[in-house]
């Protein structure tokens, strides 16, 4: 029997409402993502990679095209609401993704409060998540302003993981981090993928990081799919643009 992809998009098309230009932000994107995979989306700024990630996350609806989750079409409010509960999104700028007036522990337990968990359950899950990302228990009652960007990024990751998502979409997870912190973040992401079976979708403009983390890389250029390749296999039919990007390493 053929394996059903966890998330699959076909002919995804998107244009921002109200834009006068006929240019589409995304054109004809086909993408199949299987459970437990690590998929990278590579592209320069303006290539539509963030738009695609927002569509995959269910923030935006594609102008046309099909989006299937576990083989079922995502359509209508209810389907999207259920879908959103099963994925999580990690933003590029960790400082903007946390409320500066809330403590670390409260930030991590927030999604559980919305899901109406019991108080003890919230506490145990939140502390487990914070330990997993390597936060010192002494700092759980600090405010985000007191932490470094790398630490806040890990708090965001803990918050995303507290709900036990099936898919984790990371938008440029490393670009705000210093070189000495990136490795730590990469390690945690890989750990999540291996131990918790989380499907990772990582968006980046740096081929270096993506080649390092992912097996499947989708290259976008000006809203169009340029290449989709598996880095474990021989790739001899890559387009010129992809080669140019890869040669920069």
């Amino acid at each position, binding site marked *: 029997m053929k394996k059903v992809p966890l998330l699959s998009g076909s002919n995804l098309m998107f244009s921002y409402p109200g834009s006068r230009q006929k240019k589409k932000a995304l054109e004809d994107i086909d993408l199949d993502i299987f459970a437990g995979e690590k998929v990278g989306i590579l592209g320069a700024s303006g290539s539509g990679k963030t738009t695609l990630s927002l569509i995959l996350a269910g923030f935006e609806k594609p102008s046309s095209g099909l989006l299937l989750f576990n083989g079922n079409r995502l359509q209508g409010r209810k389907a999207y609401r259920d879908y959103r509960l099963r994925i999580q999104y990690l933003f590029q700028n960790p400082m903007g993704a946390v409320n500066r007036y809330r403590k670390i522990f409260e930030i991590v337990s927030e999604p559980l409060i919305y899901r109406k968990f019991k108080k003890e359950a919230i506490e145990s899950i939140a502390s487990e998540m914070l330990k997993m990302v390597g936060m010192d228990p002494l700092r759980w009652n600090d405010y985000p302003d007191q932490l*470094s960007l790398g*630490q806040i990024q890990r708090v965001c990751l803990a918050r995303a993981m507290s709900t036990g998502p099936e898919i984790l979409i990371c938008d440029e997870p490393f670009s705000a981090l*210093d*070189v000495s912190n*990136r*490795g730590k973040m990469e390690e945690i992401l890989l750990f999540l993928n291996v131990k918790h079976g989380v499907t990772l979708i990582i968006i980046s403009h740096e081929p*270096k990081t993506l080649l390092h983390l992912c097996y499947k890389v989708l290259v976008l250029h000006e809203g169009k799919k340029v290449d989709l390749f598996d880095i474990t296999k021989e790739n001899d039919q890559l387009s010129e643009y992809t080669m*140019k*990007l890869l040669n920069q390493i």
Partner: protein
Amino acid sequence: MIKVEGLCLSVNKKKSTFRLVRDVNYSLEQGETLAIVGESGSGKSLITYALLGMLNHLEGLEGTVEAFGQKNILKASSKEIRRLRRNKIGYIPQNPRESLTPTLRIGSQLAEVVAAKTGKSRRSCRLISRNLLQPLGFSEPEKVLQMYPHQLSGGMCQRVAVAMAIASSPAAVVADEPTSSLDLLTKYEIIKVIKSAQEEQRFTLVLVTHDLDLAFKYCNKIAVVYGGRLFEMGTANELYVRPRHPYTRGLVRCFTGAGMANSGLHYIPGEPVSIYTQFTGCRYFNRCQMRLEICEVKEPPCVRTDGRRVACWLYGRDEGK
């Protein structure tokens, strides 16, 4: 040409004094390129602000910055500073799109800068600004002058900012993370534009960055800043091949390790000590793999060993003298 000695900056906050920049010494010759490398919040931007005379209003500023024929920039009057900024220093900002006025055409903004820097009439400035853009890789400079910043891409905005910085053939250009908001291909384009301008005009370039790739490839000197101190300074080649300070070693290992696919991940464990905590010892103490007992108590002095400066107790006080 630029000589910085004993640069210190302390700030009073909540009744205690925090030393944001401590005892920074370096000197640069004409035409050299210095990369100041450090983590965010390490004070690397502050060190360059001192060179631009942007910190002169602060009380806790000490040390001397001798450059551009000035005895001490830190003590210069605001009139002198303005003259320096017009003629001797160029500045390339981090986020070019935000540093251009959104409601003016590129042409008038550029002409204004040229007019301020050269004192010529507006009409001739137009022509000069066109000639400025020509070598920076614009295919149609005339068209660009008629556009607004939001019509340009990030890379084009940054090239306009470069044009503004080099308008008066300055003696030095300070670039504060010029590529951090750009993507990979544009990043190298911009750095090449800056470097070719440098070759032509022979100015000194100070590049603030956290991108080690740029530092090692395009700069001849590198200063590693951590917690407001210069941890190590030397030529790029030496630092890459034989880093001395444990922190530099860690950084270089992070950098080279990340280059190879599927190799072991490397990172420096721990978090940097916040600049707002009082700590008498070495700032890197809590993350250092090779720490000694003395490191916790006393801050190491900056020592010269074979042509470079290292601030670490591993390279004792007397070695190399």
